[in-house]
């Protein structure tokens, strides 16, 4: 059975056609990969020897106790840690097979391709519409009237359009927390990222908003690759195909979510997913 068309596909014909149509067919299967990534601040290692590959179009959850290096890992992937005092790194991060630190790589372009959503909503001090298009403007992707179109498309994409269409030029700070986070998601999507890093994106939201945001995440693949740091194990199970568990700066476990939660290989994982620690 072909999973997209729902029809029998015994000879693999549909699959091969789909492959030809796939604009990403000539790119590496793994959009992001780390190789022996070790990160420290001021001589203190926070991440140790992390090697992992993230297949394009998948959702990977990152779980682990506080201080285990989850957020550091995430923030290293779009080079947000580069300017933190005492930042040191060994090993590498490959974006489409190319190091994100290679001389030919433009930092701003890396961040455009690897977007980020933060723990708490962080709208900019400008109108709702300007928030959505701020990145588009900065990268010179669109201008003038096009910006209005971009704003509408992205606000519709995150399901915020009807709520804000009459106050596009109003303050984003009057929106609810959940709406603000959706606005920030629209803003991140507007620059057309390939990977979206989500750092506990719903930890500041109520259950209803969380549900809305989670539902939205699921519509973003396979166009995007998502990496979600979460303390909410239920969320990890609901959202992700693969799960990484960090423990004390090391990647203790990485595998299909069902396996990590069902038959964990590492005893620390077992204790963590059963709620015995963390």
């Amino acid at each position, binding site marked *: 059975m072909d999973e997209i068309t729902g029809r029998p596909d015994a000879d693999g014909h549909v699959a091969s056609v789909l492959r030809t149509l796939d604009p990403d067919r000539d790119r590496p299967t793994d959009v992001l990969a780390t190789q022996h990534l070790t990160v420290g601040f001021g001589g203190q290692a926070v991440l140790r020897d992390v090697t992992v590959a993230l297949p394009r179009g998948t959702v990977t959850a990152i779980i682990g106790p506080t201080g285990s290096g989850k957020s550091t890992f995430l923030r290293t992937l*779009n080079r*947000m840690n580069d300017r933190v005092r005492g930042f040191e790194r060994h090993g590498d991060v490959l974006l489409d097979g190319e190091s994100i630190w290679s001389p030919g790589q433009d930092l*701003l*372009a*890396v*961040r*455009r391709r690897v*977007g*980020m959503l*933060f723990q*708490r909503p*962080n*709208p*900019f*001090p*400008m*109108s709702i519409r300007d928030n959505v298009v*701020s*990145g588009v403007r*900065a*990268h010179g992707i669109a201008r003038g009237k096009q910006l209005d179109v971009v704003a509408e498309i992205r606000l519709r994409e995150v399901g915020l359009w009807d709520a804000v269409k009459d106050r596009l030029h*109003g*303050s984003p*700070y*009057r929106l609810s927390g959940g709406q603000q986070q959706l606005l*920030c998601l629209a*803003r*991140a999507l507007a*620059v057309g990222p390939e990977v979206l890093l989500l750092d506990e994106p719903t930890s500041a939201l109520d259950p209803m908003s969380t549900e809305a945001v989670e539902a939205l995440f699921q519509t973003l693949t396979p166009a995007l690759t998502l990496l979600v740091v979460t303390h909410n194990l239920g969320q990890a199970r609901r959202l992700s195909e693969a799960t990484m568990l960090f423990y004390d700066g090391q990647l203790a476990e990485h595998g299909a979510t069902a396996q990590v939660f069902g038959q964990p290989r590492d005893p620390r994982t077992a204790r963590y997913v059963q709620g015995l620690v963390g």
Partner: protein
Amino acid sequence: MWRLGGRVATLVPVGALVFLLAVLAVKAWPAIRVSGWGYLTGSSWLPGSTYGGVEKVHGVTIPVGAHYGAWPLIAGTLQTSAIALVFAVPVSILTAFALTEGLPSRIARPLGFVVEMVAGIPSVIIGLWGVLVLGPFLAHDVYPLIATHIPNVPVLSYFGGSVGYGEGLVTSGLVLGLMIVPIIASTTRDLFLQVPALPQEGARALGMTDAEVARRVTLPWVRSGVIGAAVLGLGRALGETIAVAMVSGSVLGVVSPNLYGTMTTIAATIVSQLDSAATDGTGFAVANLAEAGLLLAGISIAVNLAARAIVRRSGALGAPVGRA
């Protein structure tokens, strides 16, 4: 008892302001009756006969030939303050950015201290430095570079022509600007430190350059506060007396024809003319200085009210300081 005391205490500044304006108005009354609106538009500053000859105009006894018009003073006050703001606001914002983000803290900390110390330098010393050092330097080495390249066409010619000897409009404006940079810069620095990191990180994660983060996020976040700081500086510039009296050239009765000409301001005129005005037996000269003072107070109050309106409007997007 304490509540009553608190209420009375809040009335003190209000009462002082009202009393001050009332005294000025009473002292200025003869001048207002004689000159009327002509005081605002006239350009002469003539004390009249110094041999005791008097005449009666609108029921007020004044020296023969006395005629006062404050237009050049008003223009000079507004021009110098405008130049000061145009210079000081960008310099202060850049200074604040350098102090909060651009420089390593072991340099930024002592530098911030120096900036605050500059605010405490007596204005007479800055004026002296303006006359002896800054003015001559600008007139010899800077103004000619600008003035000689300006074509003689309307509007632009304001920036050309004779550059004088370093005492005049733009020198006064720059000296005032230097005096208010510490006020605006230290306030702006404190405001920048209050901007939460999260929106700035968000902007960086979106692929904005440092300059874009500053322009689109950090600065808008504190916009109303920066406007407030600028108004604080403007208030100082409008009322600054002695430094301007020293570097303006103190020429009464003319509006400078270009950016470099000699002129004077309301505050500088009051201090430089008070002595000779006291020799006017009819008291008319003092009345005219009082009216000038009343005008200055009016301008300062108007500027503050305008700033409040601007702050309210720019705060419409409501970036709440301390919230992320």
